[in-house]
């Protein structure tokens, strides 16, 4: 198709050809084309078939307001082809067709509309109930437009940025540009968001006069250049706003250009104040067959020619309700379009110059007439016009019908920001009645039409937004208001809601194929509120995000009730306002985790790392994940484990002890010198949330440990539970500052004595002792003798920067004993054999200290400390019906149940926390939480393992610990 290649308004470069593959054939477009305009230039007129009736659909808004032009592009379904720039080698396919869009085998559905009244699937397909699963399957196949496979992999790079601004302007048309200039020229930081790839809005493509010297499109480029020169204004073009939230939080996404490193980028802006200048779209004209290919809105027809150089047809009729329609007719006529008739819904009020223009071109002009019925099977070939009352009619042949009821404001961003909208009788618009704090509206969306008034309105809104940030700006407001008042105000709008038709094939929503007849059916069934009708008929719930039913729906409903517009309200708008890839919301998946200083050493030694919380830690040092060798080495020799992720804290100050007493269940005033105190923290329900060790290093000076998982929230916890007290204490989180090596096994002392500068005999350094030493006169270590794995064991705490050296020294000292690494799985089995719990494994949200047999960690005599959890511990001490921690031994030693298996009798009575085969005891053993009624030693437990198909396993409750019940080995 030939292009109008010399127009100054073009946004394409006809010299640069780009090819695409459409349904197996090569088509050609040019740089700047969208996928839709490139296809149109290649002769495509039918782009898809509609959802329910499979009616042919084509270009209508040229802005993606409906799913007519949703197509599959490069494997991605539902791409809005009118908004997607063409790039080389794109593969495009039509959607929702069986065959081709021109010859769709499902086209017969259009004749079955009588069988599909409003909400038919709610009412018909479930009587009798057994047909519903069949109907469901078929309806699912037919519902939806695009196709996607569960294996689909989204390609591309998705970025995210979070800029802050003083003023955020939504909309880069004349009003938005004026607002950005007003605020930016006063030094404020402005972010301007525009959804088209260029600035200029609805001035951009129009050759009509701006003033005596320049045309509108020149003014658009002039304003854009002025804005781009202001250093404090940041412009994001090709960026659509998707959400607006409290305190002016705006979310948007930007489509990446050729030179950008991202395909799409999520933008989240916190602004002090916001200007909404999103302009207007056209209100669709409602008449019979109002969505035939060949029927276009004014902007679509005009921009096809002026922006993309494509004449929208050969023989046109116009049925419009706004001067923009007459302006477009005159311009398109001068570009070569034959126009047979211009019908204006309005009886009067047209710009006389425009009417005179039609007369000069001898284009017949009718006032008070409207399109009534469009004809043509697949494409338009004729239109029946009638008076708006329906009293007279005439047929006119045409292949293009430019149809538009008038303008309607784009109020989406205002609705999302929770502005109240009310119907205005003069403009026929829903105008903002009450805007949230520091949010301003400007431009065409207020009903203004005059170019200078639109700019002045933007200028004023920009100043108001600036004044929200800088009160000095208030001085400039008065002249700006006066300037706006001197210019023409909002124009009278066309109020016609529908042509005088019955509406059987008058589509109020193109996406969901909802007709006026369907809406009337819903109303007659008692769905009187617009929101109910929307859901019952599905009008406005399609990919177009309500762009077509828009304000027509509430206006139609109001008319039905005989209310006029007064009580009508637009339906609630929700984010995202524009279809957005999930990948854009997800952003780049950064795989982040923390490593200990010994990470590399562990890996080099054969450590198999796993994620635990935010960390990566060595779980196994064997190919055999039962870790038999690691376990036996700790029991018989000596092993070393990296425990650096342990939470570690310093707490000090005159009230440090008070804070410890508040948070720990035990009596912290009874910590002896040189001894550790094993302690637990509970929540207000008495449930155990953490356990660790506390050491007193001096007067008002303590060092304590927590589990790795709780390290991040410990300081927060202390501060929360002392928030009313005003105590004087300080805390430092030393978790990352110190590393820990656990040396465990009967030969542990023999290894350690080669390293430290002191007496570590059992008398000098007994079990539960705490000592501080220097290793090689340099490395200060704090050493604790604990018993988690049930052997002679030392925990060495040293500064993180020395950890690698310490590791080397320990490995060297252990060489003659053939010291081995052991990982978390081995540690897990070792501690299980001792009946020692891990929070989250042998406890869950409902488990109290008493339930796991640690009630002795609670000191009931310190009521004055108001310890967190003490009240509940007292109240649940003798409570019946609780789960208790028990040890169990399987009847069949060769069959170990999976962790988490249920313990059952007539109902679920508990679960297996951990179960393993013990190489030392040659039994399958484990720990479980069971109902108190099953907790007695010797009780037979019945275990239900996932997918066991009724074959239960059996175990007996045994005393804890399984290994070394007297704890001799710990105390060696």
């Amino acid at each position, binding site marked *: 198709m030939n292009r109008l290649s010399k127009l100054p308004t073009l946004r394409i470069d006809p010299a640069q050809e780009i090819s695409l593959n459409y349904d197996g054939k090569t088509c050609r477009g040019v740089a700047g084309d969208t996928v839709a305009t490139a296809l149109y230039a290649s002769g495509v007129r039918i782009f898809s078939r509609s959802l329910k009736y499979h009616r042919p659909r084509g270009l209508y808004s040229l802005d993606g307001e409906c799913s007519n032009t949703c197509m599959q592009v490069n494997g991605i379904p539902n791409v809005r082809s009118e908004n997607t720039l063409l790039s080389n080698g794109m593969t495009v396919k039509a959607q929702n067709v069986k065959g081709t869009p021109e010859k769709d085998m499902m086209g017969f559905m259009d004749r079955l509309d009588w069988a599909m009244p409003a909400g038919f699937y709610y009412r018909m397909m479930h009587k009798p109930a057994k047909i519903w699963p069949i109907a469901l399957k078929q309806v699912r196949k037919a519902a939806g437009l695009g196709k996607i496979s569960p294996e689909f992999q989204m390609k591309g790079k998705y970025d995210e940025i979070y800029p802050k601004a003083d003023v955020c302007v939504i909309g880069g048309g004349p009003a938005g540009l004026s607002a950005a200039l007003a605020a930016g020229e006063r030094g404020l930081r402005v972010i301007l968001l525009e959804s088209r790839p260029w600035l200029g809005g609805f001035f951009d493509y129009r050759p009509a006069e701006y003033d005596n010297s320049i045309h509108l499109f020149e003014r658009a480029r002039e304003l854009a250049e002025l804005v781009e020169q202001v250093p404090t204004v940041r412009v994001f073009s090709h960026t659509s706003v998707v959400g607006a*939230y*409290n*305190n002016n*939080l705006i979310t948007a996404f930007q489509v990446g250009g050729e030179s950008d490193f991202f395909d799409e980028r999520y933008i989240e802006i*916190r602004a002090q104040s916001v200007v909404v200048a999103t302009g207007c779209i056209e209100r669709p004209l409602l008449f019979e067959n109002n969505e035939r290919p060949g029927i276009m809105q004014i902007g679509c027809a005009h921009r096809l020619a002026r922006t993309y150089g494509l004449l929208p047809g050969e023989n046109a009729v116009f049925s419009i309700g706004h001067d923009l329609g007459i302006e477009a007719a005159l311009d398109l006529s001068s570009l070569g379009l034959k126009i047979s008739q211009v019908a204006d819904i309005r009886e009067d009020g047209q710009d006389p110059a425009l009417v005179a223009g039609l007369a000069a071109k001898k284009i017949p002009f009718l006032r008070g007439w409207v399109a009534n019925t469009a004809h043509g099977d697949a494409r338009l070939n004729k239109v029946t016009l009638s008076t708006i009352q329906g009293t007279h009619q005439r047929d006119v042949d045409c292949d293009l019908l430019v149809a538009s009821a008038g303008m309607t404001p784009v109020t989406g961003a205002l609705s999302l920001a*929770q502005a109240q909208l009310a119907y205005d009788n003069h403009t026929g618009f829903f105008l903002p009645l009450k805007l949230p704090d520091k949010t301003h509206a400007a431009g065409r969306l207020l009903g203004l039409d005059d170019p200078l008034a639109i700019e002045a309105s933007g200028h004023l809104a920009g100043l108001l937004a600036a004044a929200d940030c800088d009160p000095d700006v208030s001085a400039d407001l008065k002249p700006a208001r006066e300037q706006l008042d001197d210019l023409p105000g909002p124009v009278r709008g066309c109020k016609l809601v529908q042509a005088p038709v019955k509406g059987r094939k008058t589509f109020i929503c193109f996406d969901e194929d909802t007709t006026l007849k369907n809406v009337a059916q819903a109303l007659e069934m008692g769905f009187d509120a617009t929101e109910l009708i929307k859901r019952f008929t599905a009008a406005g719930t399609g990919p177009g995000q309500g762009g077509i039913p828009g304000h027509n729906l509430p206006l139609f409903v109001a008319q039905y009730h005989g209310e006029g517009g007064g009580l009508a309200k637009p339906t609630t708008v929700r984010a995202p306002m524009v279809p957005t890839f999930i990948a854009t919301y997800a952003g780049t998946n950064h795989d982040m985790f923390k490593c200990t200083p010994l990470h590399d050493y562990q890996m080099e030694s054969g450590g198999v790392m796993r994620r635990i919380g935010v960390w990566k830690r060595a779980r196994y040092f064997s190919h055999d994940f039962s870790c038999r060798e690691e376990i036996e080495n700790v029991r018989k020799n000596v092993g070393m484990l990296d425990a650096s992720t342990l939470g570690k804290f310093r707490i000090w100050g005159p009230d440090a002890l008070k804070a410890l007493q508040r948070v720990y269940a035990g009596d912290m005033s009874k910590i002896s010198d040189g001894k550790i105190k094993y302690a637990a923290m509970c929540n*207000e*329900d008495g449930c155990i949330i953490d356990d660790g060790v506390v050491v007193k290093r001096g007067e008002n000076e303590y060092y304590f440990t927590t589990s790795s998982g709780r390290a991040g929230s410990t*300081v*927060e916890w202390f*501060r*929360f539970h002392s*928030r*009313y007290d005003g105590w004087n204490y300080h805390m430092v989180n030393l978790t990352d500052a110190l590393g820990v090596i656990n040396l465990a096994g009967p030969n542990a002392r023999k290894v350690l004595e080669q390293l430290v500068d002191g007496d570590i005999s059992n008398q000098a350094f007994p079990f539960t002792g705490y000592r501080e030493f220097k290793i090689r006169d340099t490395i200060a270590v704090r050493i604790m003798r604990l018993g988690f794995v049930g052997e002679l064991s030392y925990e060495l705490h040293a500064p993180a920067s020395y950890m690698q050296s310490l590791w080397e020294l320990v490995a060297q000292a252990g060489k003659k004993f053939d010291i081995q690494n052991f990982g978390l799985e081995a540690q897990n089995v070792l501690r299980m054999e001792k009946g020692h719990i891990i929070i989250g494994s042998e406890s869950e949200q409902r488990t109290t200290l008493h339930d796991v047999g640690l009630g002795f960690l609670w000191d009931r005599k310190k*009521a004055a400390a*108001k310890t967190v959890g*003490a*009240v*509940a511990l*007292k*109240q649940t001490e003798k409570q019946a019906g609780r789960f208790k921690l028990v040890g169990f031994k399987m009847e069949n030693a060769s069959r170990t149940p999976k962790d988490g298996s249920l313990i059952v009798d007539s109902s679920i009575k508990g679960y297996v926390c951990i179960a393993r085969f013990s190489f030392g005891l040659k039994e399958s053993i484990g720990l479980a939480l069971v109902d108190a009624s099953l907790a007695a030693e010797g009780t037979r437990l019945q275990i239900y393992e996932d997918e066991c198909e009724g074959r239960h396993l059996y175990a007996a409750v045994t005393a804890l610990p399984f290994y070394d019940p007297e704890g001799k080995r710990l105390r060696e």
Partner: protein
Amino acid sequence: MAFTITCPICGKRNGYEFRYGGVDKGPRPDEEELTPADWCDYVHMNACVAGVQEEWWFHRDGCGGWFTIHRDTTANLEVEKPEVNQ
């Protein structure tokens, strides 16, 4: 949370930087004569005010301080402390 919160130390920041710490219910009541039902109410029951309430917030991604604000639960916005009506 999308709304902004004013931290007494750091100033007005994005709501996402904070963690919610519950409605202010005052310090823990005395243990004497406290029944399990009373205790459960103190810990778990909330007044569910449709209006302004005083509540605790923790500046997790900032200074780490605990403080209270007043929030209008119907608009989900931080508000000034309301005047006391006698």
